[in-house]
């Protein structure tokens, strides 16, 4: 289960968040936990370098793409490595939408698109589409494989 996907800017302001199976009262904890994690570790990180953390049986993989931090939280089959797959899918979709590793401004300009991409990649707590092309087609309301 992918419990959370969260985008934040470098100051820790949350830009997009999607939770699944996380009770409302815990989301706050997750938010601040993740943001704190990012503020402590993402400063010197390379672009798209994957960082990892864990809390009890929950794994967290996070990274920095352009000016935007991306955190993904998962459990069960979505362990660190599976989350890395998810994060690859998300970052490549974001880059695809933005054309490059986004600045915060660019990210916000493409906000709607990115939300749609996310909708195609992680849906109801499960990884859905991973291929960039497929995602691109789907957010334009084309079938996953073009006839």
């Amino acid at each position, binding site marked *: 289960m992918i419990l959370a996907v969260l985008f934040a800017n470098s100051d820790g*302001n949350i830009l997009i968040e999607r*939770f699944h199976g996380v009770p409302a009262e815990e989301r706050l904890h997750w*938010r601040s936990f993740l943001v704190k994690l990012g503020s402590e570790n993402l400063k010197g990180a390379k672009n798209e370098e994957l*960082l990892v953390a864990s809390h*009890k049986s929950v794994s967290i993989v996070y990274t920095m793409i352009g000016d935007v931090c991306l955190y993904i939280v998962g459990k069960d089959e979505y*362990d*660190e490595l*599976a989350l890395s797959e998810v994060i690859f899918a998300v970052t490549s979709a974001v880059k695809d939408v933005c054309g490059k590793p986004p600045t915060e401004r660019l990210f916000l300009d493409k906000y709607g698109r990115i939300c749609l991409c996310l909708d195609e990649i992680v849906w109801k707590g499960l990884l859905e589409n991973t291929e960039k092309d497929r995602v691109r087609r789907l957010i334009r309301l084309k079938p996953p494989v073009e006839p």
Partner: protein
Amino acid sequence: MASGQDSSGTTLMDLITSDPSAASAPGASSQQPSSSGGGGSLGRPAPAAADRKSKRATLMQIQSDTISAAKAFNPVKALPQRNRKKKPVSYSQLARSIHELAATCDQKSSQRQLVNSVFPKLAVYNSVDPSVAPSLLMLHQQCEDRNVLRYVYYYLARILADNDSQGLSAAGGIPTPNWDALADIDTVGGVTRADVVPRIVDQLSAESTSDDVEFHARRLAALKALTSSSTSSSEMLEKLNEIVFGILEKVADSKQKRKKGIFTKQGGDKESILRSNLQYASLSALRRLPLDLGNPAFLHRAVQGIEFSDPVAVRHALSIISEIAVRDPYSVAMALGKSAQPGGALQDILHLHDVLARVYLAKLCHSISRARVLDERPDIKSQYSSLLYQLLLDPSDRVCFEAILCVLGKVDNTESTEDRAGGWIRLTREILKLPEAPSVASKGVLSKASEKSSKARRPQPLIKLVMRRLESSFRSFSRPVLHAAARVVQEMGKSRAAAYALGAYDEGANLQAYSDNVESLDSDLNENSQPEATRKAKPPSNGHGGLDTVAGLLASLMEVVRTTVACECVYVRAMVIKALIWMQNPHESLDELKSIIACELSDPAWPSSLLNDVLLTLHARFKATPDMAVTLLEIARIFATKVPGKIDADVLQLLWKTCLVGAGPDGKHTALEAVTIVLDLPPPQPGSMSVLTSVDMVSASDPKSAMALQRLVQAAVWFLGENANYAASEYAWESATPPGTALMMLDADKMVAAASSRNPTLASALTRLQRCAFSGSWEIRIAAVQALTTIAIRSGEPYRLQIYEFLHALSLGGVQSNFSELQLSNGENQGASGTGLGSLISPMLKVLDEMYRAQDELARDTRQHDNSKQEWSDDELKKLYETHERLLDFVSLFCFVPRIKYLPLGPTSAKLIEIYRNRHNISASVGLSDPAVATGISDLMYESKDAHKETPTMQSGIDPDLAMAWAAGLEDDVWENNAPAVDKVKDFLAGAGTDAPDVDDEEYMNSRPSAGYDDMWAKTILETYEADEDDGRSSGGSSPESTGSVETSISSHFGGMNYPSLFSSKPPSYGASQQTIREEPPSYTTSVLQKRESFDNPLAGRGGRSSGGRSSGSHEDSEKSSGNPHSGKALYDFTAGGDDELSLNSGEDVEIEYEVDGWYYVKKKRPGRDGKIAGLVPVLYVSS
């Protein structure tokens, strides 16, 4: 809710709206909604990042100024847009523009606006209110633009997904304003969710069932949107099922016929592509439906799914199947039929380009190959295990690791020790025979293929494959890979520990067979099968064999693992340490692990949650191998000394306890020693940053951790007092020495000598406690004195006398001067008594005084009776018995003693009391008349026990060991029901814990740049929360959990259930005094003063009562014996509604004092959980 955006300055919406294309041109740059980034109007620099990159920002500023100036002349962009020039658009504005634009959706400009500005901004909100649904539906029907439609599906799905309670919606974002507030929207007012959802569902289901090729993509999208609706209503579920199965019926079966054509898929004709898309959509929908166990159609469709050409569809199919296989492996195996055979569909998945699909395949193979129900079908099982073993060769680490975990027998955390042990044996013995090429496999029959491939490739022992793979993973640079690899090693350690735990009786014979098998298969393995066999047979002789033995392989792996400790990520390091702990064998040297941990802990980067996690790992390790108790305690000690401020003292204590019990009779001494070493630590010297490499050096350089260390020492002292007797197996009620003998040895030196020769464990514990009673801080001294009293009461002579003398000296204060030169003064006012403990010690001394006096009297009386050859008269016996009971009550106030066995008057009194009891038919039961219970000393701690303990104690008396274990809460039973630390351990052991992490290192919260959340919408949510937390938990702005400030230590010490001491009974006044402590600034002296008060209060009350009881017999007893006519019993549970009311549990005994207006004023025997002992309850709730 709407305040989410109003009160917090810049919101996410501001950030988004501040883009130039949206703002109308003239003066755009001056109309930024917030103070952030001056040059935002070009949309270039991130507003908040502006200060960081000031140079660039200035550049941008210039540039944007130019551009906006240019724009002013050429206001093409100033379309008649909605009015969001000055302010960010509000939700209602967005909603309104959707309604407007939906009406004109055939115009290109409206479409563009929708796609470019309205819909993206709507995405900022965390839910979509139903009032926009009609417009969305209109768009859905009339609009043709794909981009608009995609958004429409997105929002329709979100409307469907919104559970009735907003908080549960998956999407985060700005809280959507209250829907009622939107009622003024003119187009559609007051639309509720119930109105629109059926319409949405109808429209979408109609679309998703239409076969029109034109609408192919829309059909897929509609189906997806439909599945996001909650499946909790059976009606909806039925509808969904109908649609999904309807589609599958059409597309899945036809696939079956043309199965052979799959391999030519990519260039397939249009029809097959359409089908494959539909297959994908329907399976992905099926995956989201609740698992329909026992429905053959459901399983059938899923099984068909693994042959689909769409990889995502296959993944979903496999995940469904693997989930069903966990519950019902038999029917899954039957349904899958031959697909696991070479050439079958499952074999194709090995080469499918989808990682998760292969992960699910591994899970599926594992559950089928381990299924008991398939025991009669070894052929099936072997097919699946061979598939599983092949996955070990998978190029993806994720898949390979999953396969290793499956081989090791780890699926979730519910598997039994046997499973895990079997897993380890499987890993070390089994051989991968069929790493065949797919082409070979798909052509040949099973036997042929295996022959061929075994010629083509050597069979490989699994362990070698795995080790090689892991070693190479540990050389990776990717942190997730390192973390995962360490986790796999940890799981290996678990399985190995399980194998060792069962090893004694398990697998000895089996092994030979296995290794024969190995030999026959591969001569290469000849040399290692033999040593392996011997190694297994007698695990201790686990030397570093050649590189080919399992031990050798493991050793080289562990070498690599250890180097990973150098990773800069603490989480990886934590996982590595956990792995090392798990791979540590009881018989191996511990030094390396210890030094690694000691080094690690010197790193300040470790968050406390992670350290506690490691501590819990120790716990789990202990559970797996009780032999390791002492070893683990050594490690735990490192934690206590290195990072006292970061670990949870409760968890540590629990570890001590479990280890003490688990260490067995021989290890008890060592275990206790390991605990008490904490006490031998020199008191932290503030400011001295001495060498940190030594394990025993305390690194509590800052006041915070110094405090925490104090708390830890306090905990250790308490622990020692509570458990020394258990560890030393020394109990007063078993002591053979008659008290008279001890009285002869009044010379202190002789006494100590005698004591230590008789029981070194107890003697050393005493020495340590005595030292603590001198040195250490005030609270440690208090705890030490309490601990000493406990030991005095529980032990026989000469210990009791030794402690008595010591306490006596302490109360006079004379000894302090002797010692004060040795210890640095800690700047406290020592008080008039010299130690400041006089008032505390006196009641304790009084108990002992009374006991000795009574013993003297008894001795005298006995002599008299003996001399005059008189029988004891009934009155005399009665007097004796009363003294006995009184002393028992008195003693029970200080610590728990088994009432039946405990003889405050010494062993000689046993007979006489027995006689009296027999004569008067007094049962020696404990139960509620025990004042220890009645006054709540053992509240919480023993409560759960009482219920099922009472009966056996009545008849048989308690086994002293058991009693002590019970007293100290050592038994699993007790600790499983109680302390909060236990929950942590239990959660941890169960592998549970998806709850949110506790980020309350307020250090962070406080030190965080104010630019952080402060201007964000999220802050508004945070604010209330933080305020609450601050009030409730920390008065000094320091992190409450990690520092263990004085306040926490008090509350936990005297309120926490881990310390069933005299003071844990909360008299009503206690709550109040605690309150005052919290409100005080956390200055050390005040809290000490406060604390003294809170100590004295209960004590004075108690002392008064008991000394009063001396003249009139025990107060309570007299009341009881006079047969108070107003005693009653609670008939039902009652929860207090006000301050003067009293909560009751049904069945509780109470004393009714008086009646007022339908209320009884009652008194309980002991204070309830809320600390109240008396109050009003409704008359009807009590039977009088």
